[in-house]
């Protein structure tokens, strides 16, 4: 297995937790792992991104055009990841906008969903458009958007479900049942789109 995962969003969405689970999954599968995280001013509403590289690859950062999967937790942040998507790779776009304070009164300044999708299409990415917020809410745990996306990512990457659930047990012991429900719902959503 040799895979690159690029995960991006803003502070508080659980981007790093998502990366930790994927990295630990790779380690448990006996693979070499690199896990880079850029947190910066995340506590203060800033952008957050992390990269997980699994397999016999050396650098800590994903080279351009080399991400097999990109998970965009906040739509506009996804624009920063276009450089890294592998042609034919998959981008999981979470239908979520978080306006910075100075944009709240002018939501029309925020980029159109259609334009973000168009750019990823031009970059030859397969697109999974998912409303993780709604799915997480239905699973009874609105905060578990990242786990819904983990589900979708696990389907696309053919992760072994039981091992991922063991990772959930280890990394998020609280509200485990709801997290598993969120994971399954994400998995099934991606599976449904594949048909």
């Amino acid at each position, binding site marked *: 297995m040799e895979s690159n995962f690029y995960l991006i969003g803003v502070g508080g969405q659980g981007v790093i937790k998502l990366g930790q689970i994927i990295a630990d999954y790779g*380690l448990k599968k006996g693979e070499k792992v690199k896990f880079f995280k850029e947190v910066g001013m995340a506590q*203060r509403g800033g952008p957050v991104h992390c990269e997980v590289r699994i397999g016999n690859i050396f650098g800590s950062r994903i080279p351009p055009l080399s991400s097999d999967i990109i998970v965009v937790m906040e739509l506009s942040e996804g624009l920063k990841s276009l450089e890294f998507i592998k042609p034919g790779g998959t981008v999981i776009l979470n239908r979520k906008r978080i306006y910075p304070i100075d944009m709240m009164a002018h939501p029309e300044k925020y980029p159109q969903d259609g334009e973000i999708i168009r750019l990823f299409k031009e970059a030859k990415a397969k697109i999974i458009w998912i409303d993780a917020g709604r799915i997480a809410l239905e699973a009874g745990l609105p905060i578990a958007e990242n786990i819904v996306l983990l589900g979708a990512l696990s389907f696309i990457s053919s992760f072994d479900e039981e091992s991922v659930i063991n990772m959930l047990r280890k990394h998020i012991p609280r509200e485990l049942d709801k997290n598993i429900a969120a994971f399954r719902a994400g998995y099934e959503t991606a599976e449904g789109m594949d048909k």
Partner: protein
Amino acid sequence: MKKLLTGNEAVAEGVIESGVEVVCGYPGTPSTEVILTLLSQKEELGIHIEWSTNEKVAFEIASGVAWAGKRALVTMKMSGVNVAADSLASVAYSGCTGGLVVFVADDPGVSAGMPEEDSRYYAKSMVVPMLDLASQQECLDYVKLAFEISEKIGGPVFLRSTTDISHVASDVEIGKKLKLEKREAHFERDIAKYTKAGAAWCMAQHQDALNRLAEASKISDSYVTESGIKVNETQFEDGSKLGVIYAGAVEGSFKEALKKYNLKLSWLKIGMVHPLPEERIKKFLEKVDRVLVLEELDPLVEAEVMKIAYLLNKKVKILGKFDKTLSLIGNYSFKKIKNALEVLLKTKLESGQDPKILERAKELEVKRPTSFCIGCPHRGTYFALNKAIKNLKYKKDEIIVTGDIGCTILGMSKPFESCWTEVAMGASIGLAQGFKWAGIEKPVIATIGDSTFFHAGIPPLINAVYQKVPLTIIILDNGWTAMTGFEENPGTVNLNGVTNTKRVDIVEICQGCGIEDIQIIDPYQSKKATENIIKAIEYPGVSVIVSRRECALQAKRKKIRLPQRKVNIDKCTGCRICLSSLACPAMVFHPKDANNKAYMEITSACFGCGLCEFTCPFGAIEVIKDGK
């Protein structure tokens, strides 16, 4: 056994495996997590671990430990070496008996705002050997090696990391714990070694330090670590006249490029960057005629390679920073390294993403200005300060506010835009005095956080008192070294109330330094705080305001709950004055809806600082009582 560890966590593991008895340091990105990791296991480890008041103090403590024959590690970011440098230079001449390792993390690419200083120059100027980390495994292995070298040569050793090593996690093979024989603390009086009285002694010490360097070079050059890493390593490619010499964090991407593009070239890895393995470099240069030097920040290795090529009297084309193949600025991404390799190979390896896509994405990008956290007491302080300046009939751009390092500097950003400068730990207070002596007649105000004040704010405060410089110093005391991840400092009130440390009170320090006008304010009580700041600014001498409120994130962890606020939608006009005055992340603005009504919302993330109440001209912000 393999574990997923960041570079800093791997350093901590190395410390545990090396029999170190004392670890100290001062927090600073990207070095902080070494001590944080060790502190979380303090009880089991049974060793002394502390956050010292500053890097110089930390280094001196570690030196005392090493002079008593035991092993000590001291950690800091590159800016911290500047602070510790005075003592470092001196101890480096004296040497030590127990192992003394200085872990310093540089920050190419600036993950936390500060100069992109290259700490490797300190190794040169202080005559101290330096190991440069190239992988997370090395973080563990080289701690052990650094202590081994330190004790063999009898002098301190630098262990240098960078952000892309310290903050990246990787699978790291955990080693065996070293079984050191029990050591009794013992210090032999030897004033020719441990004092600097007299030229003869100092020059003899200088010679000793140089001898230690040579010995360190000898030990490291052929050294192979437990997990099989060679500190310095040469690989010749038959039939190729091209070569790469590299050091530090560039290793991963360089090796990846070799594999990805199936490149055939010779390479030389340098793990000890001071002193450099001159013989090895010489042998390498004899076999190549085009060399690329890969190292982040300054061309330290490159300059030496040039020197060696010159002495060798061989014409070798050396590519790097001097010929502008590579930049002096920022960390080296895969792309930068690939581009440099293209120059070396004189051929294109791969093109990246369609520039049109990237250009468009850049245009659409949403800027996310950083603001204070929800409930941050600093928001209240700067809000009150700006109000005070306004009430005194000054314009904001007339009053110089010198800022300092840490969360408090966010007062430079919107919406407050109070701070004008950020220099170094404690520098706000010295700078402010300079502005006064230069003849700035209007009030000058210095703002500084609690930990920064303890670190380096006290000497300039004493100076201001002694020289009778009229200025106002606002100490924003949130009780924590918050920016780097909530480390304790001498002013921290311990979480459980049980502690083996004694809290030092900032107000008492100021009194002891001769400050006659000290006021304590609560930044959440905006009206009163503004009045007090006005009084302080009007005071003719040195006045101090201690703005005291615990960091809201820490207070939240302690389950402190204050009454939250809500917006009375009937009264709210949607004017957004609250939002534009405070930029509180708990606020959401709803533009005109179907009923043609725009309004603010305060979400459940509200901490209850209550500042928004002071901003609303319509009294639309109310306290939530009994959940309503």
